[in-house]
C-alpha cells in the first residue's frame, strides 16, 4: 500500500457519516473491489444460463459470454426428458423424482427425531446426558468415509441396499448430530420457568413439547429444514455409494450425463441439466434470505 492510497483510505472513518461525495477515490476503490468480486461470483451462473439457451451450432462458433442470438428452450426440454445415462434416455426427470422421494421423508424424519432428542437433552436430563452429548458432537466430525462400508453391511442385512428407503435412513442418521445440537441449543434458551409452570399445571412430556416448545421454536424448525434440504439435495457421496442406476439421485445422474465419455458433447443440454439440478437449493436460497444464512452457518462445521 502506497502512502497516497493509505491516506485516501484513512480520510473517511469507517463508522463516520455517509460520505457526501459519492465518487471519491476511496469509494471508487471500495465499490470497484466489490464489483469485481461480484463479477467473479456471477460469471458461472451467467455463462450457464446463456449456454443453456443457445443451439449447438452457435456454441461451436461463438463466444461463451455472448448472449444467445436465437433463444431456444430445446436444451432444457432435452435435459429434462431426453438426456442419456448409459442405455436410459429419459432425462434428468428420473433423478429429480428420486431426489424428491429421498428428500421429503429424510427431512421430515430427521427433524422429527432430532427435535425430540434436543428437547430431551435440554430439559429432561438423564444420567450421562452430558457424556452422550459430547459423543454426539465428536460424531458430527467423523469423516463419512470411515463409516461407509459398515453401513453397506447394515443396509444389506436389512435388505435396503440400493433402495431409496436405505438412503432415507442414511440421511436421517447422518443428520442427527448437527440437528440435535441445533435443537438442544435452541430449546436450552427457552426460559426454564415456562417448563416448570407447565409441569405444575399438569402437562406431561409430550404436552410440554407440543404445546410449549413447538410453538415457540418455529424459526429453528425452518433453519433445520433449510439445512437438511440443501444438504440432502446436494449430496453426492451417499447417493453414489448406496444406490443403483435406477435409484440414482439427481446429482449422481447429472454427473453421469455430463461426464459420460460416449457421444458428442452437447454443452447446452449439459448446462441446462446443471441448472435444473441447482434450481431447488437456489430457489430456497432466494426465498428464505436470512434464515438460509443461519441454516448453512449451523451446518458449516459438520463431518
Amino acid at each position: 500500500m502506497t502512502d497516497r492510497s493509505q491516506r485516501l483510505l484513512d480520510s473517511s472513518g469507517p463508522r463516520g457519516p455517509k460520505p457526501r461525495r459519492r465518487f471519491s477515490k476511496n469509494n471508487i476503490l471500495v465499490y470497484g473491489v466489490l464489483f469485481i468480486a461480484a463479477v467473479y461470483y456471477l460469471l458461472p451462473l451467467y455463462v450457464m444460463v446463456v449456454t443453456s439457451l443457445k443451439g449447438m451450432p452457435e456454441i461451436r462458433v461463438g463466444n461463451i459470454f455472448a448472449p444467445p442470438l436465437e433463444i431456444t428452450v430445446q436444451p432444457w426440454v432435452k435435459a429434462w426428458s431426453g438426456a442419456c445415462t448409459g442405455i436410459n434416455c429419459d432425462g434428468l426427470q428420473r433423478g429429480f423424482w428420486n431426489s424428491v422421494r429421498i428428500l421429503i421423508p429424510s427431512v421430515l424424519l430427521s427433524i422429527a427425531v432430532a427435535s425430540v432428542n434436543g428437547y430431551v437433552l435440554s430439559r429432561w436430563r438423564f444420567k450421562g446426558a452430558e457424556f452422550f452429548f459430547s459423543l454426539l458432537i465428536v460424531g458430527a466430525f467423523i469423516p463419512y468415509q470411515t463409516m461407509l462400508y459398515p453401513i453397506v453391511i447394515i443396509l444389506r442385512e436389512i435388505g435396503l441396499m440400493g433402495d431409496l428407503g436405505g438412503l432415507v435412513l442414511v440421511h436421517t442418521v447422518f443428520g442427527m448430530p448437527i440437528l440435535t445440537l441445533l435443537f438442544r441449543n435452541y430449546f436450552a434458551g427457552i426460559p426454564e420457568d415456562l417448563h416448570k409452570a407447565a409441569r405444575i399445571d399438569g402437562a406431561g412430556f409430550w404436552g410440554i413439547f407440543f404445546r410449549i416448545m413447538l410453538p415457540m421454536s418455529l424459526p429453528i424448525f425452518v433453519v433445520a429444514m433449510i439445512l437438511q434440504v440443501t444438504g440432502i439435495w446436494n449430496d453426492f457421496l451417499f447417493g453414489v455409494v448406496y444406490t443403483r442406476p435406477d435409484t440414482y439421485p439427481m446429482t449422481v445422474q447429472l454427473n453421469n450425463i455430463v461426464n459420460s465419455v460416449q457421444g458428442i458433447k452437447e454443452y447446452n443440454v449439459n448446462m441446462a441439466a446443471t441448472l435444473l439440478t441447482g434450481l431447488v437449493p437456489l430457489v430456497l436460497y432466494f426465498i428464505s434470505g436470512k434464515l438460509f444464512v443461519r441454516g448453512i452457518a449451523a451446518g458449516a462445521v459438520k463431518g
Partner: protein
Amino acid sequence: MILVTLVVFIGGTLWTIIHSFTSSRLLPKLNFAGLDQYERLWGTRRWLVSIDNLMLYGLLSLLLTLVIGFTLAAILDRKIRGENAFRTIYLYPYALSYIVTGLAWQWILNPDLGIQSVVRGMGWQSFSLNPLNNPDTVMYGILVAGIWQGSGLIMIIMLAGLRGIDADIWKAAKVDGIGTIKTYLRIIVPMMRPVFITALVAIASGIIKLYDLVVALTNGGPGISSEVPAKYVIEYMFRAQNLGQGFAASTMMLLSVMIIIVPWLYLEYGGRKNDR
C-alpha cells in the same frame, strides 16, 4: 434413532479401524495382517499424490478463503450501498452442490470453447488458460472452483464477527490516529480470534472431505494428477475391491480430522464447562 446413530457412528468407525489391520480384499475378513495395509498405503504413488494435492489445495484454499472472506466482509461492514445485493451474490454459490459447481467451471475452463478461446478470439493468440488438462496446474483449476463455492460462507461468518465489534473501538483508534488498515490488522483481527478459529475449522473439515468437486471437474485426471484421499478411499473400497486399503486410507483421514478437531472441541466445549 439416536442410539442407532451412536451405534453406527462409533461402532462403524471402530469396525473400520479394526478392519484396517486386516488383509480384507473383496469381503471384510478378520485375518489380521498388522500394519501391512498402512505400509502399502504409504508406498503407493497414488496415495502420495493424493496427499500432496490435498496439502497444496488445503493450504492455498485456507489462505485465500480467509483473505477473500475477511476482505469482502470488512468492505461490506463499511456502510455500503446495496450491501444486501452484494451479500446475496457472494453467498449464492454455497447453495449449489459441488457437482453443479464443478460442471459449471469445467465448462468455463473448457480450452476449445471457454475463456481461452474467447481471449484468443480477441487477438491474443498465445494466451493460454487450460488448467484442467495440465497435471501441473490442475489443482489450481479445482481451487478456483472451490473458492468460488465456499468463500461466501466465510464472508458471512466474518461479517457476523465484525458486526459484533464495539463501535467504540473504532472511535478510540481514530482518536489515537491509527489508520484504517492498521486498525484492522492490529486490533480487529486479534479481537476476532474465535471467529477465525470457527472459520478455520469450517474450511479445514471441508478440505479433508474434498471429493465431489474433483469427481465433477476432472475425475482425478489427467492421469492421477488430481487425486485426493477421499477419492482414494471410495475407489479402493467400491471399485478396486481392495477393502483393506480403503479402510487404512479412511483411518488416516479420521486421524487427520481428529488432529484438527480435538483441540478445537476442547477449546469450545471443554472451556465452557469450567465457567459454570
